[in-house]
Every structure is written in C-alpha cells, then in structure tokens.
C-alpha cells in the first residue's frame, strides 16, 4: 500500500463523517491550544522576570540599612528604617573592596512632582552618576547629571518615561523643562529609556536627582537608603559580599554579624528564586493544559473504536481481497494521527492567538517559544499513535470471516 493510498483512504474516511471528525479534533485543538497558551503565559512571566533582573544587572549587590532598634529595646522598626548607612560607608567600600566595577549610593522617597497644571506623586531617587552604570540606565534624550552637578548641589533632574507621560504628555524633548519637586524648582536634563514596568516597582515612574541635592533639599539628612554595587565578575559575588560585610561591621563597631545594622542582597540569589518560582508556575500551567490534551486523546480513542466497530465488514472485505494486518493497522493509525496532527496545527494557531490576545487585552506578558510549538506537534502526533494504536490493533486482528459476517 503506497503512502499516497493511505492519505487518500484517510481523507475519504475522515470526510465521510465530518461532524464526528471535527468534534473529536476539537478535543485535541483545545488541548494543544491550551498547552501553547499556558506555556506562553508561564514563559512570558519567566522572561519578564529575567528581563527585569537583567535590566537591573545581575552582578549587583544591594546594601540596605537594617532594622532600627532603640537602645536597650528589642522592638524592630522594620527593614530599612535604620539610618546606619552613610556616604562615607559608600566611599569606604569603593576604596577598600577590590573587584568592584561601580558603587552608587542612593536615597529615595516619594514626593509630589509638579509641572504647570499637571502633577504626579512619584519616587525621587537621589544618587551619583555611577548609578547609570550600576543599574544599566539608558537615556532616550538629553543627558544624565555629572559629578559637578552633585558637587554644586545643582537642582537638576532626569525623569523616567512614565513621569514624562504624566507631566509632558505632548512633548518629546523634555530637556530644559522645569519641574517642581516638593515645592522646589528643578531643571530637567534628560529622559530615560523605558524598561517596562513590573508590578508596583516601576523603573519608569521615577525622577533622578543628584545625591547631595536630595540630601539638602528633600530628605534633609545624610542617611542613604541603599548602596548599589556592581561586582566585576559574577563568580566573585560571594567574596565581594563577605568583604563588604567585614568592612561595614568594622566601620560600625559591630562584633556579632547577626546584629548587623545593614543587609546585603545578592541579585543572583533573587534571580534564582524568581526563576525557580516561574518555572514551577510554567510547569503547573503546562500540567493543567496537559490534562485537557489527555482528555482529547481519549476522545480520539473513543471515536476510533467506534469507527472500527462500524467498519467491521469493510475491514473483513479488505482482508479478504488481500490486505495484511499491517495495511489495516496503518490505515487506522493514520486516521488517528491525521486527526491529532490537524488538531495540533489548529491548536497551535489558536493557542498563539490566545496568547497574543492575552498580551494585548489582558496585559499579561506571554512568550510562544519555538520549542513549545515543536513539542506540541510532537506530542499531538504521539497522542495520535498512542490512542490510535489500540483501535488499530483491534481492527488488524479481526478475523476476516467473522468480520464479513458482522451485522
């Protein structure tokens, strides 16, 4: 039996009962479609987490003030409430710890930002130009402030795209514009490139000002909210972290590491945790979708068994005129594989469409990978073979005499 004969027989058989073939195929369409869409959602989440971490920089160590405790008391006032980190600490780290490529102290707070009739409440970060290196900040237009601005405590600012949208919705060039932060006039120097928002903490809804300007006009103190450090190589992150801990403990006259008044967060730890969470999420979504694929497969098997029973006489006739077991089983297997394969094609298209719609209207990040498409095709063909095998074997094993007599 030639391959083209099998194709012809299969199409005749499937077209003979269009509604039944269509409904059975629908099971596979929904199964494959949901696998593609769910994996796209999972991988989209994974990708956005990774992108966000990448945008911050994965060689990053973040040093934050620890818990403030009043002397003699054990009441914690929450992480970051301490005012233990200072600019001197940052300078000491920069000069004493080796293998650091950049150190950026920063202070941040939420302030009302006004321009003309528009205003917004946003996060204002006071920092040094090295922040650009540490946090991978790119400028859309204009320039970042310089060390000279910091020394002179210039009232200049760099704004994020979200702030631009709020304050200057119709402007593309914002350099030279005036904004008021906390009632003080600032001149805008530049606009950062959008990094995309990720939940509450957006890198786009932000205003950067020089550190000393922030200390004088906004916070009124020298305390830092964070020191960001980039290590020159990812392999020495732990060493750098230990060196900084040792230095800061010495500087703060603390003997016991457990009572340190600062905390160091390692970006790569966060990456690992985040990606293991999203991987589990992807796996879970995939498993749920996989169950619907299994149900679709059982639908195929059900239909194929019915078909074999209905066509018992035909099978008997085919065997009488010379079809071998192999010919019969191939014919029925190819019917089930054709159903699952066509269902797989439609399912991939629908799943892809569903993922695109979710992104467009639901704001969910999705990512359809080539691997998941190839996998879906493979799985659908395998399902056709697995669930078609038993019915095909049953057909092939029919005794021609009994099959011909079957009523």
């Amino acid at each position: 039996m030639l391959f083209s004969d099998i194709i012809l027989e299969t199409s005749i058989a499937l077209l003979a009962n269009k509604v039944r073939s269509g409904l059975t195929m629908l099971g596979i369409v929904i199964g494959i479609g949901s696998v593609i869409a769910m994996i796209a959602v999972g991988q989209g989440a994974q990708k956005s987490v990774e992108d966000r971490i990448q945008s911050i920089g994965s060689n990053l160590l973040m040093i934050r003030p620890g818990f403030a405790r009043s002397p003699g008391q054990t009441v914690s006032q929450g992480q970051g409430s301490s005012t233990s980190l200072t600019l001197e600490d940052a300078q000491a780290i920069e000069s004493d710890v080796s293998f650091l490529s950049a150190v950026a102290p920063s202070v941040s707070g939420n302030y009302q930002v006004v321009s003309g009739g528009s205003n917004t409440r946003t996060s204002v970060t006071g920092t040094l130009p090295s922040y650009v290196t540490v946090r991978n900040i790119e400028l859309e237009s204009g320039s970042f402030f310089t060390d000279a601005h910091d020394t002179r405590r210039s009232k200049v600012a760099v704004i994020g795209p979200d702030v631009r949208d709020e304050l200057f919705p119709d402007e593309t060039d914002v350099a030279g514009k005036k904004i008021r932060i906390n009632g003080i006039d600032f001149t805008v120097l530049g606009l950062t490139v959008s990094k995309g928002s990720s939940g509450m903490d957006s890198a786009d809804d932000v205003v950067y000002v020089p550190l000393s300007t922030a200390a004088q006009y906004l916070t009124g103190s020298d305390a830092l909210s964070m020191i960001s450090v980039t290590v020159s190589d990812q392999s020495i992150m732990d060493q750098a972290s230990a060196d900084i801990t040792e230095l800061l403990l010495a500087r703060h006259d603390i003997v016991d590491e457990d009572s340190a008044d600062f905390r160091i967060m390692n970006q790569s730890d966060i990456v690992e945790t985040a990606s293991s969470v999203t991987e589990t999420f992807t796996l879970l979504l995939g498993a749920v979708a996989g169950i619907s694929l299994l149900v679709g497969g059982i639908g195929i098997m059900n239909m194929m068994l019915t078909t074999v029973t209905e066509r018992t006489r035909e099978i008997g006739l085919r065997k009488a005129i010379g079809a071998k077991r192999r010919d019969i089983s191939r014919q029925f297997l190819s019917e089930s594989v054709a159903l699952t394969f066509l269902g797989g094609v439609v399912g991939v298209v629908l799943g892809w469409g569903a993922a695109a719609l979710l992104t467009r209207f639901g704001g969910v990040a999705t990512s359809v990978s080539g691997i998941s498409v190839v996998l879906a095709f493979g799985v659908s063909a395998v399902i056709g073979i697995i669930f078609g095998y038993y019915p095909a074997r049953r057909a092939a094993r029919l005794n021609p005499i009994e099959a011909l007599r079957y009523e």
Partner: protein
Amino acid sequence: MIECRNISKIYCNGDNETAALSGATFSVRDGEFVAIMGPSGSGKSTLMNILGLLDLPTGGTYLLDGKDVSHLSEDELANVRIQKIGFVFQSFNLLPRTSVLRNVTLPLVYGGVPRSDRQAKAEDALRAVEFPEERWEHLSNQLSGGQMQRVAIARALVNNPSLVFADEPTGNLDTKTGVLVMKAFRRLNREKGHTIILITHEAEIARYADRIITIRDGEIVSDMPNREVRND
C-alpha cells in the same frame, strides 16, 4: 488446480466440538465452473472459506496449484489471495461513498500494483462485466443491486485471479437481475477461462455450473457433472 484430501474443520466451543466439515476429498481442474450446493448449515461456507484461503482446515491437506497451503500464516494467506483469488459476496461489500473505479482498484492497492497500471486494469475488468462506462465515476451507494454486484465481480477479476469464488452472488438480487449476474459468470468462464466456484443453496442457480458438488452435514454426498446446463 485445487486438490483437497480428506479436509476437515472442527470448531471448538468450550467442551463441545462441532465438525463443520469432515473428510472432504475432491479436486477442481483449471477452467472449471463448479457449484457447491447445500442447505444452510451444511458446511458449504466453511468449505469456501478454506478453499478461498480465508481459513485453515483443522485436518487434511489442501494443495493449490500443487503447493500445500494448509499451514500458511495469516499474511502468507493474504499474499496468495492477492495473486490467485477473487471473491464475490452475497452482500456486495463495496466501500460506501467511494467511486466505482476506486472500488475496483482496491485489490491492486493492496497488491502493490503501481498507480500508473491500476486505471487500465480496472477499466478492463469493468468492461469484462459490461458495466456502463458513464457510471464509472458514480459512488457505490448510487448504484442498483445488480450494478453493485457487477462492480463486485469486476473487483474480483481486476488482479486477473485464476480462481473466483462467488458466495450466494444472487442472494440479494431479484430473479431477473440474478439471471444477468449468472450469465456474466458463465461468459467469464467460457470466454476468459476463469475457474469459478459458486456457493449456493438454490438448485436453480447451481444449474448454471458445469459440475455440481452437493454437501450435507459437512460431508460431500454427490459430485457429478451437470447435464442440463442452464442457458437462458
């Protein structure tokens, strides 16, 4: 061509053993037109299944063209069937919703005949049974009973078998159509030299054959030439 020696078939149903056929011994020469006649339950269908290589005997020897075929495997039997045997059934057994030509081509498909040769062979077979050419592309379910049986005969002839079995070929037809079908068999036997074995329970139909083997309760009770061959 066919040589049967003491062929028997015993069906086991639990502890019960039923002998459908016991000790059938006869032979059929090339080009004969033989009717195997008997009432239902006589074992004539069992005999046809064995002669047509759809089933194996439980005892005895069956030589087809001098070769012992009593112990072949299922697929080996299928191979011999493709080469040497054609079947015509009482209920036609055409593939539904399939064109006449495609139905006739089916044995060639399983016989591994290349696509280019199939059409010509199918057309020859349809012409041999005088099936009107304008209906070749009709679907099988659009045909009358007589037409369906002609297509079935053409299908049986398409791979040019030396042996054609006809199992109650007129059973589902009215008398007039039945006569036409039997005449077609006669002509194929006389003009093309096909060996035809006709299975029937009707004496009137058996009279188209040259030789009548009567079987009853699994045993051959008579085997004689037909002196009054029907020729109407």
